[in-house]
């Protein structure tokens, strides 16, 4: 079975919400849509106070290069354009909408029929991805139209679809594969067409045998879709690791996947691409997992973007258990703790993960014993213990020479450290310092 060559760990999988079918979350009374839901500059609001909007109407336009359109997830009246605190308490520009009814844009095809044919030219596909505000749903929320505009002089040879879902707890990708396999395959065919590559490879970790079987059966009806079962190892779904596992190629330090002829997309994105291209539906919904060992029930939901964490929690489980230590958006390895549960969800949110008090706490830190476990765990072949020492002593230049910027922040080092040193925290701080140093030199 294929896997990446270097490092990796195997955290407890905890896929306890695997069998919960995707439910539809009802829409609340008011929606707050952040203008900055993607990597890059915030979108510029194009509606005004008092405007009537429909579901799927453009409310934030991408004016900068690294930016994505934002559409209204609900119908109603624009209440105000103001700032709103996001999940981490940071104020961001947002559009507040009072929900009235559920009136969709006429252009959106809401019938359940599956549309297979796509005759659009690659450039038209990319333009439509931009129009529909599609971003990568694997976590980084990288605007899709930029990813699929291949720079001149470079050629894509492989399209790789990440369905590894190597993060513990998360099951949204698994549910999408089980319930929307055909749509996904059409989405992949569209992306293949956009890139002009002969084959697309879908990497699925072997702890999802049903998804592998189901996807294989569906993919038979399509041309050029190869399902690749992968070994269960974290971070199998990381861009560079997945490329290494499937093609055997290695992305050199400081280069992008396209430099080795690869484009990697998340499986959730392919479903969004299908809906955008074939059904004219902008990215206004997330599929997210509500899970946690101490929760009375496990869920997978289709949620309109802008629904707050509190609304999701109260609808799914009523209220948080008293023993809750942390609410995490994302998986346990790379997710971020949410401090403001009144914050609206944004594109790319994959889960509301509730962790108990005991599990949430970090164990006390002790001294490094130079055991080298972090080096063995690092999938990028770096030396986390060294970065720790360099960052603590402020040796930024040296940290840069040891390629600190190659770190993908997967957290394997911290996970494997027997001394519980906050290695990833230190590396992130070091990366910030290196970036600041490089910016100052320019």
């Amino acid at each position, binding site marked *: 079975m294929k896997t990446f060559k270097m490092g990796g760990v195997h955290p407890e999988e905890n896929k306890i919400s695997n069998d919960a079918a995707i439910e539809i979350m009802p829409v609340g*009374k*008011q929606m707050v849509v952040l203008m900055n839901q993607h990597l890059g500059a915030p979108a510029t609001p194009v509606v005004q106070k008092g405007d009537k909007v429909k579901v799927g109407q453009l409310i934030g336009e991408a004016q900068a290069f690294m930016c994505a359109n934002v559409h209204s997830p609900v119908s109603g009246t624009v*209440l*105000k354009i103001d*700032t709103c605190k996001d999940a*981490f*308490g*940071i*104020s961001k520009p947002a559009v*507040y909408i*009072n929900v009235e009814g559920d009136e969709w844009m006429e252009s959106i095809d809401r019938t359940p029929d599956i549309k297979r044919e796509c005759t659009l030219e690659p450039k038209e596909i990319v333009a439509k991805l931009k129009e529909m505000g599609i971003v990568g749903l694997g976590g980084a929320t990288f605007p899709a139209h930029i990813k699929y505009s291949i720079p001149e002089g470079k050629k894509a040879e492989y399209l790789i679809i990440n369905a590894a879902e190597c993060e513990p707890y998360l099951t949204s990708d698994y549910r999408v594969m089980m319930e929307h396999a055909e749509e996904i395959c059409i989405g992949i065919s569209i992306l293949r067409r956009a890139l002009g590559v002969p084959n697309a490879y879908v990497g699925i970790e072997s702890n999802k045998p049903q998804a592998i079987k189901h996807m294989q059966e569906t993919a038979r009806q399509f041309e050029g879709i190869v399902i690749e079962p992968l070994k269960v190892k974290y971070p199998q779904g990381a861009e560079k690791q997945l490329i290494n596992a499937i093609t055997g190629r290695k992305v050199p330090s400081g280069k992008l996947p396209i430099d080795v002829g690869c484009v990697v997309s998340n499986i959730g994105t392919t479903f969004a691409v299908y809906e955008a291209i074939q059904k004219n539906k902008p990215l206004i919904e997330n599929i997210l997992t509500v899970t946690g060992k101490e929760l009375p029930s496990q869920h997978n939901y289709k949620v309109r973007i802008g629904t707050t964490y509190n609304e999701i929690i109260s609808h799914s489980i009523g209220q948080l258990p008293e023993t809750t230590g942390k609410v995490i958006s994302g998986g346990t390895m790379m997710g*971020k*703790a949410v*401090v*403001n549960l009144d914050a609206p969800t944004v594109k790319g949110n994959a889960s509301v993960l509730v962790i108990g008090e005991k599990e949430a*706490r*970090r164990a006390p830190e002790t001294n490094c014993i130079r055991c080298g476990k972090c080096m063995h765990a690092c999938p990028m072949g770096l030396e986390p213990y060294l970065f720790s020492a360099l960052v603590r002593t402020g040796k930024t230049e040296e940290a840069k020479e040891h390629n600190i910027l190659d770190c993908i922040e997967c957290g394997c080092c911290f996970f494997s450290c027997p001394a519980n040193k*906050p290695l990833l*925290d*230190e590396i*992130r*701080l070091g990366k*910030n*310092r290196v970036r600041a140093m490089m910016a100052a030199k320019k």
Partner: protein
Amino acid sequence: MTNDILIAVIVLGVLGILFAVVLYIVAQKFKVLEDPLIDEVAEVLPGANCGGCGKAGCRAFAEACVKQGNMDGLRCAPGGNAVMAKVAELLGCSVEQGEPQVAVVRCNPSCKGANRRSNYDGLQSCAFQNTLYTGESGCPFGCLGCGDCVEACQFDAIHIDPSTGIPVVDANKCTACGACAKACPRRVIEIRNKGRKERRVFVSCVNKEKGAVARKSCDNACIGCGKCEKVCPVSAISINDNLSYIDFTKCIACRKCVVECPTHAIHDVGFPAPAKKAEAPAEAPQEPIKVNITVGEKVEIPANN
């Protein structure tokens, strides 16, 4: 036997003279001409290498002084006026007498603790915590309390008060070098004039959010209401981005603004404690009124009894 000793002494002696000559020639050839004044100036400086002057260290500061020939734009904060006068004497130029200064932490100690909304157990570094989220208090501008300033201080003049989690400056030790202000990722610390009789008034908040939002973050936040600006007799107070700022060069420390401030965001330091008032029973701390408001909804604000 005697011959052997003699030969050894002669050989070593000749070699010694030979090397001495080579070394002398090399030393003359590659001589670096350095103004002896630099050494003299460096001697006068405190030698703490705090970096407060913006140079790499005291030696670099001395070099800059001598190169420039005067003291314009150069100042050694830890040395103060005495050291600056000595340096000016060595250089033969004049120097402006600066007001003595001190570092001021512009975050309200009472906002911590009670208002803690989350528990941070990651790397104890403000610079890192600042990249993650707003911090334990929920204020996106306030002190994070990990002590980057404490680490930066070369003079042991700033420490975290364990009861509030906010740093406290020891005005007697502080040299106003500015290392803590530079280390603070949120620019909470400011270098201000010590003031006459070491009495000073400052706005102890750096929150630039709108009043209502700022108030949600902290009960003692400056809400930019402008009352202090109106009451100030010397117009030393200005309000920008919902935040009041007292210009310490104009302030006469009359303390009218301190009385006026509705959120007690303006602090006075160094004034004698008010007489008698100390005996009055301390007011019981009031529970902050919590009202859930959806925008657009009419609400009645409960009376404050």
